[in-house]
């Protein structure tokens, strides 16, 4: 009964669960990454990655596609988010929901639908279709956080700036963009990392011609090259670490759609 009354201990089951299913698995990734198949310490998995032109090429290509995808998503998504958040230009709540909705549908399904459309239109699958398909998949993830932050933004800053004689262009670049930076950064997080790590999607969009880094991990894990697969996952974890450093952690703009 004493335990029941001290409510901070209620988190204990979940804490144990988290250690077992979140912390321990990550430790195991690190463990496997630095082991060979017989279980002794080695750096060979990373050496293999650096000496494997296929893996390095795929890695670089994934970064390229992810960068391009992110840039296109910002260029297309920012104006859209800006219009959606602007009450003078858009009063309809339906359009907002329509932009959010794809986030709730399995990316695989949307990708397949896109690939089928390309087939029917007779478009040759390749790098171009990959990029278009990726933008299809991830644009909502860019629009939503930017919209959220623009929506919550205090309009008086922009008004003050224009009262003080700033041109609309200056207001946009000097006030709006810096203030919406956390939204952009969280959009970048939601677009960049998933693009690098998707598997299956790039195969469907390119007829297996291009694979991304996630596919290499999946192939290695599936053919039981666990140690190498773990090493590749660790490389990805490091990138996640670096990108999340860029993000401003104090403001939470994502999540909480319902």
């Amino acid at each position, binding site marked *: 009964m004493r335990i029941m009354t001290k409510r901070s201990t209620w988190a204990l089951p979940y804490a144990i669960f988290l250690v077992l299913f979140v912390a321990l698995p990550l430790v195991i990734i690190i463990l496997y990454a630095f082991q060979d*198949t017989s279980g002794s310490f080695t750096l060979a998995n990373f050496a293999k990655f650096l000496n494997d*032109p*296929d893996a*390095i*090429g*795929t890695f*670089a*290509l994934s*970064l*390229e596609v992810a*960068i*391009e995808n992110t840039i296109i998503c910002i260029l297309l998504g920012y104006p859209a988010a800006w219009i959606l958040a602007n009450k003078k230009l858009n009063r309809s709540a339906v359009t907002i929901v329509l932009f959010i909705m794809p986030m709730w549908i399995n990316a695989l399904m949307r990708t397949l639908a896109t690939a089928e459309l390309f*087939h029917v239109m007779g478009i*040759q*699958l*390749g*790098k171009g279709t990959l990029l278009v398909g990726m933008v299809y998949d991830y644009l909502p993830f860019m629009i939503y956080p930017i919209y959220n932050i623009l929506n919550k933004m205090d309009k008086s800053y922009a008004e003050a700036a224009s009262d003080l004689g700033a041109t609309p262009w200056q207001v946009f670049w000097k006030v709006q963009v810096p203030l919406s930076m956390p939204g952009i950064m969280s959009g970048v997080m939601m677009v960049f990392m998933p693009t690098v790590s998707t598997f299956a999607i790039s195969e469907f969009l*390119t*007829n*297996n*011609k*291009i694979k991304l880094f996630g596919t290499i991990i999946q192939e290695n894990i*599936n*053919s*039981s*090259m666990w140690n190498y697969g773990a090493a590749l996952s660790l490389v990805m974890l490091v990138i996640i670490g670096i990108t999340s450093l*860029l993000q401003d952690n104090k403001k939470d703009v994502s999540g909480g759609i319902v």
Partner: protein
Amino acid sequence: MPEKLKNKMKRLLYMFAAALMLAGCSQGRDNILKVYNWADYIDEELLGEFEQWYKEQTGEDVTIIYQTFDINETMLSKIELGHEDYDVVCPSDYIIERMLKSDLILPIERDFGSTPNYLGNVSPYIQEKLEQIEGDGKNANDYCVGYMWGTVGLLYNPKYIDPQEVCSWDVLANPAYKGKVLVKDAFRDVYTSLLIALNKDEILSGRKDLESLTFDVSDESVEMVEEYINGFRESVAGWEADFGKEQMTKELAWLNLSWSGDAQWAMDEAAEIGLELDYAIPETGSSVWFDGWVIPKYAHNVKAARYFINFMCMPENAIRNMDMTGYVSVIGGDEVLEEMYDSDEYGPIDVSYFFGPQADSACVSPVLYPDGAIIERCGIMHDVGTEKLLRMWSRVKGDSASAWTYILIFLVFSGLIFAVIYKYTKNRIRQQRYAKKRRKRNQQKMSR
């Protein structure tokens, strides 16, 4: 919360707890047969029938646990590294070779007591091919019983492609079919087939023999094949793992370097919607492959495994598996030949290599059982040069990173670093300026 929903949730929680407990304890292993096979590679009704048949033959109960894989290597490493106790598995030719070399499989005892031995139904052609497997002096026929076999060839749409053209692999490079060609994403099959074809003249003149070619991964040979693939890679619309047959029936592609089993499946499917597809093995040469049953070293129920293999070799079961999967069973003999015979549909060809001398002009599908003259120019693949061939394969599949890739990555990352440094120094300068001002102010105060 409504009472109904509460009950439902309770029930689900119980189910979950029960599932947890079930996973914890295991049943008596002696009465379980663990089968590990390719996905969609058997008539699954046969599994239940085997349990019954086994009871009839031996009086013992057995329950099959049936699991499937998509990649040979997945299966292999589960056994090699995980020491999993599968009783009977179905690897491909070169993996059988690898398992034999690394002592991972047990010899198959052929004494079944009162039960007839059906293992002899395996066609002599396949037995001969099994003998070619390089197993450190061990004969693969003692360790493996074939299951399915097939060839590597070209599935094509005669509406767009002249049947005359597919007698050579050169059709792949025809610019008229650019963007309409699919190639199976199977490096060993493509390499071996092309290597044999490219050495046609050497084989005919006796300078090289087919069997030694199937072991050949010398630099010149790999380079030769790579160059040949580079000659047609511009035409390739995709490297298919499994989607070739579907895209062929939808006429999205016209030509598909594929396996005979897939080709047969696609032709049947296409016929249903009134489309004609055909399959040919280029006359210059190609390769054959087969999968076979083996009993891994860590097997627990060897007896049931042997009976399972025996059961699969019964002609009627072989025919049912063929109907279900579209692949061709290795079982020869008159019963299968009779089933396959169809003089309305096919012209006579020489399949005596497979069914025995009486079949030198039998009316069977040339897709399933190619003419003897073609089969003569087909070799089997061996387990050689995996790393080297994989590297070649990823080079020719290409579409990997280009100079632009690295430039872009460099630009973005240096841009990021620059932004961070800029922000940092700006703050520093600002702080220094404040500090200076403060110092000045303090000095003024002091002097006053």
